[in-house]
Structures are given as structure tokens and as C-alpha cells.
């Protein structure tokens, strides 16, 4: 007998128990100011937030944050066949943000490569202010039926506290994360 049928056999041999799924969770009415809360969460998770009036201003702020580094967009990475490992700053688009935890949903439809947001040294994500949701429940509501081949919630730069619980930013992934609100 295969292990598969052994496992299923063992489960089926158990007494049937009728327990219903509790249904979708209704989050409590939380916040009026999703963008304000989102900014607050970003500071907790160690991300830099750029709240710019327009693209020009955002570009100026980014040059101040990453003064000596070249910045590439997703499009440039793909069309120029750039070596991802060598990229200092990568600029990508996020689909929406979640105010309770500062996470941004990224889907591989909008990434030059799945590893891109992890392997670059610094990451910049653009997300629309109108696309900030309150909680993860609303986020999954929003994703309902939209099944990316690969997608993730990304919140803050890569970090670790494995050495004596001292927080170190920049473990394996991006050393810094800047969120540009547009």
C-alpha cells in the first residue's frame, strides 16, 4: 500500500466529527485614517516613507536617500537584461498597502523576476494612497479570485535579531526599503 493511501486510510478510519467552518472573520471597525496608520506602521517596520506631491518631488527625495546609487525600474531591468545581483536600487510597483502592518502586496505579474525584490541591495516600492487597505482581511478580500503564480506581502527591509536579539537591518534581502506614496 502506498504511503498516500496509508495516510488517508488512517484519517478515514477516525470517527466522523461534524465541525463547521466559522465563516469569514469580520474585522472590527478600526481606523478612519488608513494612510496615517500605514505611515505609522512603516516607521515601526523600519521602512522609509516618501509622501510626495508629484513624480518630480519623489525623484528628488529618492536622490537624497540614495545619493550615489543608480536606480533602475522593473522595465529597465527586463529590457536591458541587467544582472539582478548587481542592482543597487530597484524601483517597483506595489498593488496595495495594508495599514495595520505596513505590508505591500507584490505579485509576480509586476516583477521583473521573482527574486528581484529580495536580491537587490535597496528596494523602492510605489503604491497609490488610494490603495491602502485597513487590515489583512480586506487585503484577501481584494485578492479574491486574483491568484498570482507567486505573490507576497512585504513589510519593511530584510532583518534579523538572531545574534543576541540585536536588530540588524539587511540580513539576506534588501538593506533598505523606501515606500513612495503616489
Amino acid at each position, binding site marked *: 500500500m*502506498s*504511503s498516500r493511501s*496509508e*495516510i*488517508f486510510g*488512517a*484519517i*478515514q*478510519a*477516525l470517527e466522523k466529527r*461534524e*465541525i*463547521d*467552518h*466559522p465563516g469569514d*472573520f469580520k474585522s*472590527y471597525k*478600526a481606523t478612519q485614517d488608513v494612510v496615517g496608520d500605514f505611515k505609522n*506602521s512603516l516607521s*515601526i*517596520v523600519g521602512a522609509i516613507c516618501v509622501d510626495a506631491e508629484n513624480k518630480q518631488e519623489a525623484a528628488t527625495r529618492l536622490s537624497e536617500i540614495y545619493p550615489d546609487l543608480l536606480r533602475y525600474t522593473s522595465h529597465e531591468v527586463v529590457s536591458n537584461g541587467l544582472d539582478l*545581483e548587481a542592482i543597487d536600487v530597484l524601483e517597483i510597483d506595489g498593488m496595495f498597502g495594508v495599514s*495595520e*502592518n505596513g505590508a505591500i502586496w507584490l505579485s*509576480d505579474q509586476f516583477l521583473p523576476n*521573482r*527574486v528581484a525584490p*529580495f*536580491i537587490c541591495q535597496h528596494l523602492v516600492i510605489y503604491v497609490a494612497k488610494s490603495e491602502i487597505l485597513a*487590515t*489583512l*482581511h480586506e*487585503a*484577501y*478580500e481584494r485578492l*479574491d479570485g486574483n*491568484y*498570482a*503564480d*507567486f505573490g*507576497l*506581502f*512585504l*513589510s519593511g*527591509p*530584510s*532583518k*534579523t*535579531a*538572531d*545574534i*543576541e*536579539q*540585536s536588530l*540588524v537591518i*539587511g*540580513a*539576506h*534581502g*534588501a538593506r533598505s526599503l523606501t515606500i513612495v506614496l503616489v
Partner: protein
Amino acid sequence: MLNHAEASEKFIEDAERTTWHDETLWFVRSKRDKVSKLLPEWEALREQASLIKDHTLANLGQYLEEFESNAQKNGIKVHWAKDAQEHNEIVLSIISKHGGKALVKSKSMLTEECHLNDYLTKKGVEVVDTDLGERIVQFRNEVPSHIVLPAIHLKKEDVGETFHEFLGTPKGNKDPQFLTEAARQHLRGYFLGANVAITGVNFAVAETGEFVVCTNEGNADMGAHLAKVHIACMGIEKMIPKRKDLGVFLRLLARSATGQLITTYSSHFAKPREGQEMHIVLVDNGRTRQLARDEFRNSLKCIRCAACFNTCPVYRRSGGHSYHQPVAGPIGSILAPNFDKSANVDLPFASTLCGSCSNVCPVKINIHEQLWFWRQDLMKDGLAPLGKSLSMKGMAFVFSNPTIFKMAGYMGRLVMRFAPFIVNNSLNPWFKQREMPEAPKESFQSWYKNRK
């Protein structure tokens, strides 16, 4: 092998380090308290998570089938392993087809449970653990002492020494920032070169056939997205019915584990990328046995956040290695007897039954009750050490005979007043690290009778 009490005794020899360990984990517990209290629906979320797991465990067969069929539709290869041995063989057979000197592995408690590293190393495969804490303990030929903070038993001086030896960092450098950077450079080479990446699984979604892996470092993703082959290993209890259920569990997991709002990366793997092979190994290894036991079934709800470790007064002062199991702490103590009762007979006793573990558990597992159930089960099986069963029998005899009970109380008070050396010596385990109390002049009973 030392039992829990013996190993703890070694751990606490270094009083300063024990205090540090205790306080650091308590600090993590306090962070958990702080962020959880920011959510007015925290208790409702715990209840919801517990109910979803109840429902899933009652319908596990159906959800496993649904998951398998959806994952296969997504182009993922699904494997089934009844035990650790078979799991290891499956992983090796996949690796053998693709070659390569080294494979990169992110944290997976299941592979620890199956002793995959040992198995693969013996077969000539170099396993590189990529989680920083796991890499540190791997260099030191140790095992993780905590499922979320694998190197919490070490101080930065220890890590500095280890990195000096294995990575050539300057002797005496113990700066966490510097050491982390050294590990980043060291592991990047492996990420770029590895053919095969192994990850664990935090949640597997039946509805979509996808699985979610959570890390803070980004090591699971670095491995999985660069390698030609991704093998994800999971216990069959990691199943959840629907994608929307993830909202509940992701809100609870990091807040309970480290007091973070969410892990840095919560990656949803549904399909392999172009040209990549993706495998999932679903492992039983005793889980269906646990599923059949009414009093222990709830232990399968665990999402491995380790909140019960951080809050446990015994774990904090005895260290993870004293549990001699891949999963230590209170939850490990109720999982371990399912694998091997006689080898783990000490673990359900490594607790004060204070119940703090059950109070912080995000999926509301009745951990302290199960510890107590296991004690009864192990005693009935005659597995308790002779001293323990004799003293229990002695106590039962005394407590059920009022005259003898009164006598014993009288004698006890007399001895402690006039011949304290009889109890104040190393033969009495209660005398270790503690003064015996002053004996009262009379018993409660006599006081009650004589009160005016």
C-alpha cells in the same frame, strides 16, 4: 542522554547567562503583549483561528485531497511520506536527479524533526542552513534551542568566536551588525550557486493549492527563487481551508512570535516559475496517530510561533537544549511523547502547570492540560521513574489516611523545628537553591478547632 532536570541543572550553572536568557525571552513575551493589545479583536482572532483549525482537523482528509489536486493543477509535484525516513528518502531522490554540491535550506521544523540534515550529510550532500541563527548553530554542530530564535542560547561573543573559526572574521569582533554582514556575504555565494532549495511551509491552502512561507531575513525566497528545484516540506497539519483564512493566521503569527506586526516576507507560492521544478512533501510521521487521540488532537493546531516558549517560566530558565527535542518548550513537551513515550517521559513533567502557555497560544491549544493528561498517561504506562511513582504512592497513602496524615504533619513540624539538618541537606531536592520554610507551631486543623 540527560533528562530535562539534569540538563537544566547544567544550563543554570552559569547564573548570569541564565538570567540573560530568562529576561530576553520575557522581553519578547512583553512585545507580544504590547502588539496584541493594540488589536481590539485579538481574542476574537484567537477564537477564530482555533475554530478554523478544529474544522480543518475534523475534515483533514478532504482538505488534503483538495490541496493535492489544486497543487498538481498548478504544476507542483506532490509527495506523501508516512514517516521521517520516507520523507528523507524522497528529498534525497529529488536531489539526486539534479546534482549540485550544496543545497540551501531555510528554516523548517519538520526537517529538524526528521533529522534531514544528518541524513543528507551522510549521503554526501552539503546542507547549508540559511537562516542566520540556524547557520550559527550548524557551524557549532548544535541544534536550534528555540524554533523562532534558534541561537537564543548563545551570546554575541560565542557567535564572534564561531564566525572567526568558520568565516575568518577578525578574532574578538562580536558586533552583531558586522557578523550579520559577514553571514550575508558568505551565504550569497551559496544562494547564487545552489541547484536545490528546501523550505518549510507555514500554511498550505486547500482552496488554491498554494503554500505560504514566512521569514524576516528573506532567506527562503532567496533560495527558492534562484534554485532550479524548490522542495517544500510540511506536516499534514499545516493545512487551512481557504485563502481568506490566511488573514486570520498571518495577523496572529508574527504578533505572537516576536511582537512584530507581520513577518517581513509572507510569500505565497502557487506555481513554479518558468523552467523551475516545485515539489511538496507532505509528511505524517505520527500526526494521524495524534489526530485519533481526543485529548491530544488539539496539539496539531500549532502554528509554531513559540509564544509558549517565551512565556514559560521553566523554558526561560532551562534553555531549549534541555528538552532534547527539535521542538522544545511547552508545545514540544506535548508533541514529543507522541513520537516516543519512554524517551520523552521527562518532558510533560518539565512544567509547573501554571497555564501561561495556554493563555498566550494564538490557536488556543490547552497546552497545560495536555501536559497533565500526558503525565497521567505515562504514569499508567508505568514509564515514570521509580522515585516519582514511589513518592506518588506514598503521598496517596498518607493523604487517604487522616490519622497518618496528622501524624506526618506533626512529625514534619517537629523535625523542622528541632532537627532541621534532616531536611536541610542535599538529599532533599527542595533544599536546592532555596531555604526551607520555618515550621508553623500548629497545624491549620488544630488552629481551626481551637479558634475562639
